């Protein structure tokens, strides 16, 4: 609302004369004073400004389209069958249609983060004023907004400055969304270029949102030693009143903490969370508890433990009102994006709202004011707890009930056929009917908590609850730790690792991000993160993946966050925070170019992306990527040339971006020193690829960390990990080593004897290592120096 007034002032200012003109000039001066860095060619770019860069990547990594359905159903000319080369009534072909859907997903994803950013910034400005300074790391972070500097070419200092960025983002998202209209964009690669643009916008939005909340709520400021916080169903004291917060917008949850602090209730109530709100809440108050990732919603609620549920936005199950009703817990919706059909009580007296909630007169309410949510939630939870503790609220069957249910099962297989992971539920039920619950308990570990089995069952067995019942002991032992999200990476950290990363001597930065649509449960993410941390890569994590990593204990009983340090350095497992904190990962890559390599960031996207692509051995792993947001986040990495690996369900995103290592001609770069074209091999081989198993993913991670700029020492280290993992996991030697060995110096010393004969058979090369770039503009001889 504030924002609107400003705009009015501005527009009406423009309609008057004289003095306003003077203002323009004065402001111009301020701008110059604030930031000396030279402005690059593309501040506030629209997608066509970076189209050439995109097409360069997309020529190397040609989209492989995987139709999820043969039909297009987006307009009333349809449905149209696009299979077999047919075109739709609007003339669209299958490839353009698939990329159009990808664009839609990326736009929804970007819109979600940007709109969340807008909501947050509006709220914080209203609360604290437009001039509230941005501070994400004090003196440790000078390059505090790498994405915004890079994309927008501005250097935001206050919350108010972020509104400029938001206006840009919203305008661009609207334009991209328009391109998905029937009869607009027709070319698959242009759709993909727009997807990249959406991804870039998304990362700007992410950065903006996390900067705002770190600054306003004083969340950990680039703190490698952020507190360890408790994680897991077993950590919750159900004797206390328990509030559950779910979603991705922390203000209402923070106001719950603030209210309870103010009323001396800290320690007397349990504030527990699922998804990113949980992560962000523990950044604010390490005494809050994280239940688990998105997939824990059904199992936790059905346990009956929460006395009151507060939902905000994003990744909130659409049936929570029903589930909450089943355990007689009132629900408070707090976001305009998810009004849940509830009556808007924002302007009502808290006494009335609490009374209605606790008495069950209404199943829930909508309250759009976080402060009021804080009060109502705490008061209603206290009362609700008193009432609920006298009742049976858990709807998880007892062991006896479970066995009776299991006896009903006729083995029709409908549950398996509804399960995304084809879990063998009927077999486990058969066993459970005999009293042996172990098979069901095993399935609990891999279950992603979607609940489709419940609906599929013709015998009305509450299947998901049965899994939880069977795994009761395990559930009670879900007691883990996760390091609170630290936020940004410090400049000094970048300064220290920049060289080793760019030279390849820290073999890679692996980002574990995204949702919980895991093919085999959360433990695989922990396993991968530990593997690479042990190998002294830098493992970074956010959101549900950061939680998944925490849900593991080694032989010494340590969680990975205890076992490994939290610095952005070799051998660390670094939880940067929630979904919006993903921008710190791309930001770190950018900061290497800026802080270590001294490249200008300001409005200079193409050069920096070229730098990151050719030099920074970073790989994203979104093992359980599920959502449109995940699609947008991945796209933001792609445009920077950072490859992303997804789990098997990730192929449902409808297309891969694959390189062809067997096409030598695809892998040339310019040597920026000479302008010469140099073959550098398939590094990185893919930009977006689905791995079938964690084993394949681990080998891919190691492989995709290679970059043209690797020194021989760096390359040989990277190859050591690749070969070692391949041999261990695949049981054989990889057959593509010759593609990565540019000269004998690249061969890992310890493997020389083994490798040399193989390589000699293929013809051992002796190629130079260029100063690599895809951009003609970066060739120094031609341009007379780069900067």
């Amino acid at each position, binding site marked *: 609302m504030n924002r609107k007034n400003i705009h009015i002032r501005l527009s009406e200012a423009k309609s008057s004369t004289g003095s306003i003109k003077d203002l323009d000039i004065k402001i111009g001066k301020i701008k110059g004073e604030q930031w000396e860095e030279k402005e690059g060619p593309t501040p506030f770019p629209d997608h066509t400004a970076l189209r050439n860069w995109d097409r360069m990547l997309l020529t190397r990594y*040609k989209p*492989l*389209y*995987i*139709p*999820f*359905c*043969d*039909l297009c159903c987006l307009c009333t000319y349809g449905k149209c*069958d696009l*299979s*077999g*080369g047919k075109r739709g009534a609007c003339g669209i072909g*299958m490839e353009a249609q698939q990329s159009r859907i990808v664009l839609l997903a990326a736009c929804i994803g970007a819109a979600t983060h940007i709109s969340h950013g807008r909501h947050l910034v509006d709220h914080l400005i209203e609360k604290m004023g437009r001039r509230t300074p941005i501070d994400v790391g004090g003196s440790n972070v000078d390059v505090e907004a790498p994405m915004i500097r890079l994309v927008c070419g501005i250097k935001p200092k206050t919350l108010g400055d972020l509104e400029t960025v938001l206006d840009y983002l919203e305008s661009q998202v609207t334009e991209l969304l328009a391109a998905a209209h029937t009869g607009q964009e027709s070319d698959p690669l242009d759709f993909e270029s727009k997807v990249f643009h959406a991804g870039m916008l998304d990362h700007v939005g992410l950065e903006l949102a996390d900067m705002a909340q770190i600054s306003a709520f004083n969340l950990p400021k680039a703190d490698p030693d952020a507190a360890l916080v408790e994680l897991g169903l077993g950590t919750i004291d159900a004797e206390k009143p328990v509030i559950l917060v779910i979603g991705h917008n922390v203000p209402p949850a923070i106001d719950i903490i603030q209210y309870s602090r103010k009323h001396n209730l800290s320690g007397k109530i349990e504030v527990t969370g699922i998804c990113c709100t949980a992560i962000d809440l523990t950044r604010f108050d390490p005494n809050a508890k994280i239940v688990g990732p998105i997939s824990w919603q059904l199992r936790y609620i059905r346990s009956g433990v929460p006395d009151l549920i507060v939902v905000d936005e994003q990744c909130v199950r659409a049936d929570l009102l029903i589930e909450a009703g089943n355990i007689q817990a009132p629900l408070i919706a707090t976001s305009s994006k998810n009004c849940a059909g509830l009556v808007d009580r924002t302007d009502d007296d808290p006494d009335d709202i609490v009374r209605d909630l606790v008495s069950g007169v209404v199943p829930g309410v909508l309250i759009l004011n976080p402060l009021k949510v804080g009060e109502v939630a705490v008061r209603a939870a206290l009362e609700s707890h008193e009432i609920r503790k006298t009742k049976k609220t858990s709807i998880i069957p007892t062991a006896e009930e479970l066995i009776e249910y299991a006896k009903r099962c006729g083995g029709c297989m*409908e549950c398996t*056929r*509804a*399960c*995304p*992971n*084809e879990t063998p539920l009927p077999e486990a039920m058969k066993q459970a009917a005999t009293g042996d619950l172990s098979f069901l308990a095993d399935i609990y570990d891999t279950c992603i908590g979607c609940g489709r089995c419940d609906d*599929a069952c013709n015998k009305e067995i509450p299947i998901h609850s049965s899994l939880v019942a069977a795994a009761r002991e395990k559930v009670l032992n879900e007691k883990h730790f996760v390091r609170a999200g630290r936020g940004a990476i410090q400049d000094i950290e970048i300064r220290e690792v920049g060289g080793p990363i760019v030279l390849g001597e820290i073999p890679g930065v692996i980002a574990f991000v995204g949702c919980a649509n895991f*093919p085999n449960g959360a433990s695989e993410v922990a396993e991968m993160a530990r593997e690479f941390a042990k190998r002294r890569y830098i493992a970074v994590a956010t959101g549900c993946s950061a939680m998944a990593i925490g849900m593991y204990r080694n032989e010494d009983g340590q969680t990975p966050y205890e076992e490994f340090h939290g610095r952005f350095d070799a051998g660390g497992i670094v939880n940067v925070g929630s979904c919006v904190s993903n921008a710190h990962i791309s930001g770190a890559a950018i900061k290497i170019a800026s802080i270590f390599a001294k490249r200008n960031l300001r409005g200079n996207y193409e050069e920096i992306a070229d730098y990151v692509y050719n030099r920074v051995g970073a790989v994203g792993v979104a093992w359980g990527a599920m959502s449109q947001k995940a699609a947008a986040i991945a796209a933001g990495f792609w445009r920077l040339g950072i490859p992303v690996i997804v789990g*098997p*369900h990730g*192929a*449902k995103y409808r297309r*891969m971006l*694959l390189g*062809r290592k*067997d096409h030598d001609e695809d892998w040339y770069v310019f040597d920026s020193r000479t302008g010469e074209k140099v073959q550098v091999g398939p590094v990185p081989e893919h930009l977006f*690829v*689905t*791995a*079938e*198993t964690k*084993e*394949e993913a681990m*080998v*891919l991670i190691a492989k995709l960390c290679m970059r043209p700029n690797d020194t021989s020492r760096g390359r040989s280290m990277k190859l050591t990990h690749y070969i070692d993992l391949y041999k261990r*996991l*695949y*049981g*054989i030697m990889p*057959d593509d080593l010759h593609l990565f060995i540019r000269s004998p110096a690249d061969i890992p010393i310890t493997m020389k004897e083994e490798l040399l004969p193989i390589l000699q058979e293929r013809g051992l090369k002796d190629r130079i290592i260029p100063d690599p770039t895809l951009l003609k503009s970066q060739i120094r001889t031609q341009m007379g120096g780069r900067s």
Partner: protein
Amino acid sequence: MSGQDSWIRAEMGGTKQASVISKPEVLMALLKKAKRPLIIIGHETISDRVRTDILIRMVSEFQKTQRIPILTTSHIAGQVMERGIRLSGVLGSMEIIDRLRDPTWNGCDGNGQYDLVFIAGFSYALGSLLFSALKQNAPQTKVISLDPKYHPHATWSYANMKTDSWKAEIDRLIDLLHSENTHQKMEEIHV
């Protein structure tokens, strides 16, 4: 609902439905017409114990009797080789699709693109996407699903069936592969 429904109920969405392999002779006929067959097996060939023996035996017989090249995806190469199977290559599932769509790809042996592809050993969801991707990107290629779950996006697929029935089908196929008559005919083709 029948054996010809998508095994994971919601994984439908194809306007064409795979023909059902009603008897092993169908596969032999396809093989006879094919110039360049290929077998691709995914990681469930090993991880799904129920299928391992059946698939390994089948693949092995295809190799012995028909000399069909075999590719594995994911990480199972070593374990498959331990079971006596020679591999023509190891690629990611997406990588192999990416090559099969390319008319200029010369195959694992440099002798040209494949025209008949047998696929088995994938999770249903991923398998379904592989078939869909091939249907879209390699429309000339015949793609056969050998797993016991109906895959509508394939060209030919077994119907949904219990393991026992499937095993019996595969046994009949192996018998046929072994029958001298067939063997000879295939020899002629592959000369």
